[in-house]
């Protein structure tokens, strides 16, 4: 029983940072129908941005909850801005190009980021200066640290805020409208390019926050850490119904829990097999995902 609760807690924690990455994946896909292959690397960039802030300013920041918020906020601003630049430089010039060209560009951007970081920080894993050791809360024998709880709380706040933004605000309405018909949006006076930039900012900032969470959870980071999570975020987005934001969160939580249980019962070498097994299962059996509605391609 204790064991069960621990597995659920771990699954929820991992699921919550998968969700942050999956949201950005799904938002970008929703608005410009691009599978942003470099999205996982933006998450990696977030981890390194947090690492840099910590290495430079650890003394000044102390180790408390406030420090965590400051570090996540800085990582988010950094990755958000980077996402905007990436879209502007790599994707926007190809807006009307065949999708394959854009996908190849995204793969190129992914490699550029990975090896750019490898050159800057070196190829070896870095030990993350904040961890999830320290004070912990015991729930029926299971253990979750205060740092983990704080990060999960931040993730939930970010997700709720994003949901409200997309559903209720003028900018969110414009995002949803662009995903349906960008040309008609121009006739409503929507500056479509600007809204796309904002979408990249938001999606990349969430990935940045996830990067910090992952660094703290696993205790070390490296330049390839974004590769697998990018694929997992894609899996979560597909499980939930790509382009559907609540679906992406649901898919990520499902995936986090599945991995946590799968690893416990079958061993950690099976972790990624689960994710990709499910990806294949969903793509074959229910390509529209759990919450996705049938999508008709625009002409």
């Amino acid at each position: 029983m204790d064991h069960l609760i621990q597995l659920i807690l771990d699954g929820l924690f991992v699921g919550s940072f998968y969700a942050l990455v999956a949201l950005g994946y799904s938002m970008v896909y929703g608005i410009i129908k691009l599978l942003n292959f470099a999205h996982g690397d933006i998450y990696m960039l977030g981890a390194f941005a947090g690492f840099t802030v910590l290495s430079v300013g650890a003394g000044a920041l102390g180790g408390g909850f406030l420090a965590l918020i400051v570090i996540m906020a800085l990582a988010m601003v950094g990755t958000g801005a980077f996402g905007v630049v990436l879209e502007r430089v790599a994707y926007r010039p190809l807006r009307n190009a065949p999708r394959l060209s854009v996908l190849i560009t995204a793969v190129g951007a992914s490699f550029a980021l990975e090896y750019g970081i490898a050159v800057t920080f070196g190829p070896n894993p870095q030990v993350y200066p904040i961890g999830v050791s320290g004070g912990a809360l015991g729930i029926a024998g299971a253990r979750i640290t205060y740092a983990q709880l704080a990060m999960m709380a931040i993730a939930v706040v970010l997700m709720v805020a994003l949901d409200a933004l997309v559903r209720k605000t003028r900018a969110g309405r414009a995002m949803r409208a662009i995903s349906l018909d960008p040309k008609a949006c121009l006739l409503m006076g929507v500056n479509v390019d600007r809204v796309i930039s904002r979408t990249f900012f938001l999606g990349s900032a969430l990935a940045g926050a996830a990067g910090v969470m992952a660094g703290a959870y696993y205790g070390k980071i490296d330049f390839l850490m974004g590769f697998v999570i990018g694929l997992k975020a894609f899996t979560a987005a597909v499980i939930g119904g790509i382009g559907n934001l609540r679906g992406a969160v649901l898919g990520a939580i499902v995936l986090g829990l599945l991995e946590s249980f799968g690893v416990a019962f079958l061993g950690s070498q099976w972790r990624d097999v689960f994710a990709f097994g499910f990806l294949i299962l969903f793509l074959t059996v229910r390509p529209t995902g759990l919450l996705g509605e049938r999508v008709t391609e625009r002409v």
Partner: protein
Amino acid sequence: MSTVLDLKGVEVCYGRVEALRGLDLTVGEREIVALLGNNGAGKSTTVSTISGVVRSRAGSITAFGDDITSATPWSIVERGILHVPEGRRIFSRLTVHENLQLGGYTVRDNAVIDKRINEVYELFPRMAERRGQQGGTLSGGEQQMLAIGRAMVAGPRLIMLDEPSMGLAPLVVAQVMEAIVAINQAGASVLLIEQNARAALKVAHRGYVLDSGRVTVTGPADELRADPQVVEAYLGA
């Protein structure tokens, strides 16, 4: 009467296809101008060029005294120049109310948006009944009303409608034309594109007939209605 829209020698190409070959056209203040012509004549290209989504290769477009030839689509909407596109282009997965709110995207003041949405609901009570329904579930006539309503929320000084009667039953066409007259009487100038020349010339003050990207006939609506060439080609025997 002052001129609100003035096109001089506008040329537009799609690759090799010359869609507009030196188009001259004006719309006066509070005027309803019909733009007629067969399929492929260049009518849609004309409005898309005015609204900035298609670029001209030569010529100039002036609106309300400003040169808008290379202005961005959103800055054109901000000037009160609204384009209700061919095929309505309703946001199918947004509700009727959200579609109308999006029409007010360039309006900063929420109170103004709400007031104008209420005016749309008064003009088209059907929209008020269906406010929470997704746009894609509306009938063709309702979608046209919504498309016109969406433009109204932006506060149009010049509204350009691309074939609003297309695919609608005669009774619905009459309703749509009535709404266009009402918008005109409220102060907006209108550029009305139609293949349905009969319906358009009933409400228009003036008209142009377009053929292969050029104006072939122009004049007051009652003269066009009597023009043998127009009668033969566009009004039937």
